[in-house]
C-alpha cells in the first residue's frame, strides 16, 4: 500500500515512471495492452497505405508514400520496444495479434480503393492520431512518452503531406475533386470513431486518467478534432458528410451528428470491412517469412560457434 501511494504520488507530480521502478500490476497490464495495441496499429496500418505504393500517380508521391509507410514500421518497432521494457515479449504480442486476441485501431479495417484515400488517411487519420498522441508525450510511463515524442513529430509531417494531397486533388480536375469528396465521405465517421466510445461508455478511462496514461477524455479529443478539421475541409471546398454539423457560438465549438456506435462496436469485434484481409495479410507475411527468420537465427548461432572455436 505504501508502494502504491508512493507510485500514485509520483504520477500525480508528473514524474516519469521508468522500467526498473515499482508499478502496480494493473498499470503494467494496461500499459502493455495499450502500447502493444498502438504498435499493432502501426504495423497493420502499413497495409491500407501500402496498397497504393505500387500505383502512386507520380514519382514524388511514390517516394513520399514509401517513406511514410516505412516511418510507420519504425513507429511499430519502437513501440514494441517500449512494451518490451514492461516485460512483454515481441513474439507473444505478435502471436496475440495474429490470433485475433490483440486489437489494433479500428480505422485500419477500412479499405483504400482510390488514391484520394491516401490523402484522406494522412489528413484525417493521422490528424486524429496526433490529437490522441500529443498528450501521450506527457504520459506517465517514460519509455512510452519518449517514443511518442518521436512518433508525434513524424505524424504531424505525415498529416501535412496528406492534407497537401487533398489540396492538390481539390484543386484538380472534376474527377479528382470527386475522388477527394468520396474519400472524405467514407473516412469522416470512422475518423471520429478513432477516439473511442463516448465517455459514458468508456469504462477504463477513469483509472487511465488518474494514472496519467491518458490525459484527455475521448469526447474532449473528438471535439478538438472536429473543431480543427471542419475549417480545413472548408478550405478545400469539400463537404463534411454530416447534415447536423454546425457552429455552436455558445460553446465555441461545432455540434455534430450522432455517431453510429453500432458500427464501431462491430468493427471492434472484428467485423470491419477489411478485418479478415488485414489479419490474413499479416499472418501470411509472418508464416511465409518463418524460414527466413529461422535461417537468420541458425546462421547467427553458427557464426558465434565459429568465433568461439
Amino acid at each position: 500500500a505504501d508502494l502504491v501511494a508512493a507510485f500514485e504520488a509520483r504520477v500525480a507530480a508528473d514524474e516519469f515512471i521508468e522500467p526498473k521502478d515499482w508499478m502496480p500490476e494493473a498499470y503494467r497490464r494496461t500499459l502493455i495492452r495499450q502500447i502493444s495495441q498502438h504498435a499493432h496499429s502501426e504495423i497493420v496500418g502499413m497495409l491500407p497505405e501500402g496498397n497504393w505504393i505500387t500505383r502512386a500517380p507520380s514519382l514524388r508521391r511514390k517516394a513520399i508514400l514509401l517513406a511514410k509507410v516505412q516511418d510507420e514500421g519504425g513507429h511499430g518497432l519502437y513501440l514494441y520496444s517500449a512494451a518490451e521494457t514492461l516485460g512483454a515479449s515481441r513474439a507473444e504480442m505478435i502471436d496475440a495479434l495474429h490470433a485475433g486476441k490483440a486489437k489494433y485501431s479500428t480505422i485500419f479495417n477500412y479499405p483504400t480503393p482510390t488514391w484520394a484515400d491516401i490523402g484522406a488517411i494522412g489528413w484525417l487519420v493521422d490528424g486524429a492520431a496526433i490529437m490522441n498522441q500529443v498528450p501521450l508525450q506527457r504520459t506517465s510511463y517514460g519509455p512510452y512518452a519518449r517514443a511518442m515524442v518521436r512518433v508525434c513529430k513524424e505524424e504531424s509531417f505525415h498529416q501535412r503531406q496528406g492534407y497537401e494531397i487533398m489540396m492538390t486533388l481539390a484543386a484538380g480536375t472534376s474527377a479528382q475533386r470527386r475522388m477527394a469528396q468520396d474519400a472524405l465521405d467514407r473516412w469522416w465517421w470512422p475518423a471520429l470513431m478513432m477516439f473511442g466510445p463516448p465517455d459514458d461508455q468508456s469504462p477504463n478511462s477513469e483509472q487511465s486518467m488518474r494514472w496519467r496514461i491518458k490525459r484527455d477524455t475521448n469526447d474532449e479529443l473528438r471535439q478538438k478534432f472536429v473543431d480543427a478539421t471542419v475549417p480545413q475541409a472548408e478550405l478545400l471546398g469539400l463537404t463534411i458528410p454530416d447534415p447536423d454539423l454546425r457552429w455552436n457560438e455558445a460553446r465555441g465549438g461545432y455540434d455534430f451528428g450522432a455517431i453510429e456506435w453500432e458500427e464501431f462496436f462491430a468493427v471492434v469485434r472484428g467485423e470491419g470491412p477489411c478485418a479478415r484481409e488485414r489479419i490474413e495479410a499479416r499472418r501470411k507475411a509472418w508464416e511465409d517469412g518463418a524460414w527466413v527468420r529461422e535461417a537468420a537465427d541458425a546462421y547467427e548461432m553458427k557464426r558465434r560457434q565459429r568465433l568461439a572455436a
Partner: protein
Amino acid sequence: MDNAVIVREAHVAYLIGLGDDALILGQRLSEWCGHAPSVEVDLSLANLGLDLIGQGTLLLAHAAEIENGGRDADALAFHRDELDFLNCLLVEQPNGDFARTMARQFFFSTFQNLLYGALTASSDSELAAIAAKAVKETEYHAGLAREWVIRLGDGTEESRRRMIDGLEWNWRFIDELFVNDAVDEAMIETRIGIDRAKLREPFDLIVAQSLAEARLDLPAQHRPVTGGRQGKHSEHLGHLLAVMQHIPRSFPDARW
C-alpha cells in the same frame, strides 16, 4: 542525321536505360512493403526501394532535360509504352520468395555499384554527380544483399535450398548486364558512359567470394536471356507497368 543528334539520342537512351533499371527494381521492392519476413526486413527493403526510386527519378529527369522535348521524369515513367522501356531483364523479374528477391538484389546491386563507381568519372557532370551520390547507396545495398546471400546460403537446409534456387533463377539474366550495345559504344566514345565489359571481372570476383563464404556453388551455365535493353522484355514487365501506370494513364489531364 548529324553526329550531334545521334550522340544526343544515345545520351538520352543511355540515361533512360540507367533510370529504368533503378525505377523498375524500386517498384519491385516496393511490392514487398507490409509483407516481408519481419518488420526490420520490411524497413530495409523499403530503404533500398526508396534509394532506387530516387536514383530513377534523377536519371529520368536528366534524360528528359537532355532530350528537351517537353517530357519530364513522370512522363517517362508513366506515359511510356513497354517497348520503350530500356531496363535489363533482371530488374523486372518477379520477387518470388525472399531468396529470389535477395539473389536478384545481390547480383544487381553488385553490378550497379561497379557501374556507378565508374560513372563518377563521366564527362556528363550531372550524371557524374548522380553516380557519386548513388555509389554510396548501392555500396550499402550490395553489402546488405551479400549478407543475406551468406546468411541464407549458410543458414538452414531450407534456406540453402531456396537460395540455390534464387541464384539459379536469376543467373540467366546476368550476361545482359555486361554487354555493350550501340548506345554504350557511342557513350564510351564520348566518355559519357563506360565500358560494361570491364565490370565483369570485378563482378565475378565478388560473386565468387560471396558464394564461397555462403558455402554455395556458382550456378550452372545457362544460355543468356537478353533483350530488355532493346525494349524486348519478359512477360513480367507488362504486368508491372499495368499497375504502375494505371492511374496516370486513366487521368491524363490530372496533376498529382
